[in-house]
């Protein structure tokens, strides 16, 4: 063969071989799950003229050697451009989910909805806390990328004058009206977690390869939170710490396929002196599943290992303890609330955890705020400023 033909023949053969291999090669399980989205020729596809794009999207998920190729492609991206892949910053020892500045409209509506909830139940003490993500806590390690959200400013704006530090009184302070484009809380106890997390960031409070906080991070937040609610935190020494998994590569690794460190550890904290958790009721659709532990260990050693805390997202989860003399808490939160419930549930007879994002219409009847002694809103800043379901569902609950 003429030497000049080496590259054309090789190029043609390589591209064609990859294409054919991607179609005929046996699929892995995750690819099989995505197989369901194989594009079909239909009138709508024809009218939209995006059949080629659909096939491109489908084939890119089924390309042979996808993980290796994706890894190489991401490394190339980091070399050629910003140290960011799929909106995840690649730092020296950790991956951090980018949280960009967003239109404050959603946050403002959510704050108004929370205020409306507090007004609707004037006898119910309502607590509120926003959790800064790793992007805020490790801001000094972050690159000076544009459009990063100033999460501290968002938190301060929403809290207004209602912020409470560790030395708290039980009565809400006088709150002055302070205009904030994200809305400002009214007659609500706002609890500062940010200061304490920042002060303890040298500890392993966030996973290196996942956007979630660790159990230790949740414990640190719990200490501030429960003090702000007028109680004392249980000492960490009174917990048994089980190292349930030591090689966890979380959601941020799945997005980038770039490893940082030797893997994260997932720890489970159980109250040493006695078994406090009596029952965990998981409301899924019209069914109730009753369990006796907060931990769903079947999720360990899977890509969704952080679901070991209370399992996958669902609308309502009710935790009953043997602390019959204690109060009942109604908790509205997101996935950050789940590891925190290891500690928070030890202060209440019942904790009803409501994930408004996953709440279905038939589950509203399960929640009657009048039956509770206090309510807590606990959200990450990232979810709070972008979750539109919070406003809609909270207003429906109050109506």
């Amino acid at each position, binding site marked *: 063969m*003429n*030497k*000049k*033909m*080496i*590259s*054309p023949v*090789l*190029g*043609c053969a*390589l*591209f*064609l071989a*990859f*294409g054919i291999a*991607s179609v005929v090669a046996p699929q892995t399980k995750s690819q099989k799950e995505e197989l369901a989205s194989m594009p079909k020729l239909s009138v709508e596809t*024809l*009218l*939209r*003229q995006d*059949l*080629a*794009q659909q*096939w*491109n*999207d489908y*084939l*890119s998920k089924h*390309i042979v050697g*996808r993980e290796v*190729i*994706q890894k*190489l*492609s*991401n490394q*190339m*991206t980091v*070399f*050629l*451009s*910003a*140290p960011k892949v799929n909106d995840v910053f690649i730092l020296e020892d950790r991956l951090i989910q980018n949280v960009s500045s967003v239109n404050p409209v959603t946050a403002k509506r959510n704050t108004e909805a929370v205020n409306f909830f507090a007004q609707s139940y004037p006898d119910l003490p309502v607590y509120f806390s926003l959790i800064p993500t790793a992007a805020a806590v490790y801001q000094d390690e972050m*690159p*000076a*990328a*544009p*459009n990063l959200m100033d999460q501290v400013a968002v938190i301060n704006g929403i809290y207004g004058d209602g912020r409470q530090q560790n030395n708290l009184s039980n009565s809400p302070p006088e709150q002055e009206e302070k205009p904030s484009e994200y809305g400002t809380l009214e007659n609500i106890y706002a609890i500062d977690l940010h200061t304490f997390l920042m002060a303890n960031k040298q500890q392993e409070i966030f996973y290196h390869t996942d956007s979630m906080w660790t159990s230790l991070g949740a414990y640190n937040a719990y200490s501030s939170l429960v003090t702000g609610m007028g109680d004392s935190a249980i000492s960490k020494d009174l917990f048994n710490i089980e190292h349930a998994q030591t090689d966890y590569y979380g959601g941020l690794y799945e997005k980038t396929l770039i490893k940082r460190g030797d893997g994260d550890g997932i720890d489970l904290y159980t109250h040493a002196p006695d078994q406090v958790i009596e029952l965990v009721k998981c409301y899924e659709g019209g069914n109730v599943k009753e369990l006796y532990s907060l931990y769903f260990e079947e999720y360990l050693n899977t890509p969704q290992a952080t679901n070991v805390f209370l399992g996958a997202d669902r609308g309502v989860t009710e935790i009953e303890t043997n602390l019959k003399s204690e109060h009942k808490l109604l908790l509205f939160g997101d996935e950050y609330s789940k590891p925190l419930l290891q500690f928070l549930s030890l202060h209440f007879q019942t904790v009803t955890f409501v994930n408004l994002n996953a709440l279905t219409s038939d589950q509203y009847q399960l929640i009657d705020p009048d039956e509770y002694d206090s309510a807590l809103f606990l959200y990450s800043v990232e979810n709070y400023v972008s979750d539109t379901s919070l406003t809609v569902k909270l207003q429906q609950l109050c109506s």
Partner: protein
Amino acid sequence: MVFSGIPFLFFFLPAAVILYFIFPVRCRNAVLLGINLVFYLLAAPLSLPVLLALIAVNFLCGLSINRFRKKKELARIPLFIGIAVNIILLIILKYQFFLPGGADHSIQTENLFMDILIPIGISVYTLQGVSYLIDLYYHKVKVQKRLVPFAMYLSMFPQMICGPIVRYSDIAESIQHRQMNANTISKGYNMFIRGLSKKLILGDTMLELWNTVKAMEYETMPVLTAWLGVAGFAFAVYFYFSGYSDMARGIAKILGFDFPMNFNAPYTAKSLTGFWRRWNISLTVWCKSYVISPLGKRYTNVLATLLKLLVLWTLMGLWYGGGWNFLLWGLIFGGLIAVEQLFLSPILEKLPGLIRRIYTIVVVFCMWLVFGLQDLTRVLAYYKAMFTGNAASWSQFFSSGSTVFADGTSLYLLGSYAVVLILCIFAGGTLVHNIGLRCEHKSPRAALVLRIACEIFLTLVCLVAVAGGNGADTSFFVYF
């Protein structure tokens, strides 16, 4: 279906080339026509009737012009009909946005009806049809009496995405007899893989830089950030268009056709006039040959020259898109070139080459903002950032510790994109080409080995980039 997407690269193109070479030479026009139609069917099925209709109209008008070639008055009728059909369809389908109720196509629309009505490649095959009829009328080409080769010419898939505009005279001979050997295939592949690399590695990365800067607040933007952004856009535009052009020329070369060069290191030009002689050459040649030259023979005074430039630049601007910003961009550029030709040329010729290049780059980059930002208010705010860094006063601009010139974000962007910016400077110039020529002159064997090694390396890089999901973004293109 974009050239840098998985369906095209991994299936369509290899299959098309293999099919093309399997068939005997005498069938290749028909095979290529079939391939073109399949491409169109996969890329834009609802626009196929428009293409087929224009093929029929141009073919029949061509036959009529030829029939009346000895009676010019009669030959003019099919000529005007053919030109009118081409241009009217182009205006209706592409420039409906200037009509009352039309949408702004410079912003992507989710209007399905609009998507149906804007056929892919219409800016290319209508102009090619017009050029064929005019050249035929003036006896510059012989009529093509067979429908298959004519249809193949007008529907050539390599040029559908981004040109170049190929006049019938450029490839008339190749339609009958094409030379295909290891040399042409190798050169074609070289062009194709270089074009693909330009688009994937340079164009996509620079577009990312531009999109990052574009989303920032211009009122607080420092000078360096603004210039990085505009450089990102300027390089993205160049490497997208020239990359696609190179891919088109490369595929055509493999198939035995020689498409004309469309970009000739435009950012090395020393004047605006020089820039436009190197940028989208096929479009400039078409406009000059079929619009300006006929006018030029009759009207030659200064005012007429100015008007001709404005007409030329209006057309050039509108060809890129149907939005008001493209029209404005064309008009302003035309005005600047007129000023340069009428007043500045004598001054420019006396300046050092470096100064002239800087002048050209600054003006061209500034003009790209009109192209890319669409909103004039934002363009002006961006200019303010570029030239003043939004400083309240000159003392603020020059004070130490000031972030008017650069801040942490500027340095972050510069550091992040430095590698690709340097690659863009080299790839946009002639240095690499000149080194290659020298190498080939000194040692053809070593040059060949080096070339093969580079091609294999770029093939692997492009394979990883495309398979990794990076190749199919078409959001940049408002281009048909």
